[in-house]
């Protein structure tokens, strides 16, 4: 098996995550799809580290994980705050800034 196949898997996972962000309405599922894209990019980073014989890719993937964790904390707090006031977790409902 060619090690570049990992990159194909990463590309597919990223694509599925991107489509999920565009298609889904539930804010939590949209968030999960963003996490899926993070995971795909991490897989690509680790694969590049593996291909190039270089540890830097793994370090970058580690930093991506930290940023993703921070993003999840803030994002879920925002979702809970919006749910408290609007009683909805749909990304269609917060449209007050539109008018």
């Amino acid at each position, binding site marked *: *098996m060619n090690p570049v196949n990992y990159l194909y898997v990463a590309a*597919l996972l990223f694509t599925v995550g991107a489509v999920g962000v565009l*298609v889904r309405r539930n804010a939590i599922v949209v968030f999960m799809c963003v996490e*899926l894209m993070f995971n795909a990019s991490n897989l690509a980073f680790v694969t590049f580290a*593996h*291909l190039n014989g270089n540890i830097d890719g793994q370090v970058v993937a580690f930093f991506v994980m*930290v940023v993703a964790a921070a993003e999840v904390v803030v994002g879920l707090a*925002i979702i*809970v705050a919006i749910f408290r006031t609007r009683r909805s977790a749909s990304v269609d409902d917060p449209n007050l800034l539109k008018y």
Partner: protein
Amino acid sequence: MIHAFLATAQPVVETSTSAGQAAAFWVLAPLAVISAVLVVVSRKSVHSAIWMALTMIIVAIFFLMEGAYFLGIVQVVVYTGAVMMLFLFVLMLVGVDASDSLVETLRGQRVTAIVLGLGLGGLLVGAIGQVTFSGALGTSAAETAAGGHLEAIAQAIFTKYVYSFEVTSALLVTAAVAAMVLAHRERLVPRKSQREQSVERFKDGTHPTPFPSPGVYARHNAVDTPALLPDGSTSDASVPQSLRRRGAVHPRGVAALDPGPEASDEGEER
């Protein structure tokens, strides 16, 4: 750009991996993609979360297969452990049955999204396919130079990337404070004391005493069974309000006591 990036891989060490790794890959890679698709198409968000956890675990196995042992463990601990728990926790908080509506607010959004996704996927796969690839070097050389896998990562984090690492700590502190600020809620009206509540109850004169407990009979003593009043009718106040609103009140207790049709009818009417 990927060309230039991959061109830095100079000497060929391995162009293909071992048969065991190939077998694991060909089993796990379709599974990962299928579970990723199921994350997107699952109607219930809890199912999405479960499929997401499966995808993350498979990605962790990929990390381990590529020699990134530290990241593989961190992936399991941080992602499938902490992040997915957080997701499920918020899912429970927001309401498990908050499933997506099928109504499209933007016309043709779904089709456009899928077409764009196919375009993006084609672009990425095409770009990777264009690259002539010389083979995997593996990180073992860098690791032996540093004295081990963890040592190599630690050395990179604390020397070359030390500023990024410090900025990361600032980011995490900011995120923690932000989460606290967002979760905090100011009390708009002062909390009522027990005395004030009592005075209020007597003022409207509706029901100053506690409500009667649900009916206790030989066969039924559940909270959805109303209590029997002296005149043979049932007491609505003895059943929780949420059950009454759902129409889940059982007139069975009355029927068990007195199988006459009048009594059970009366119980249903109230």
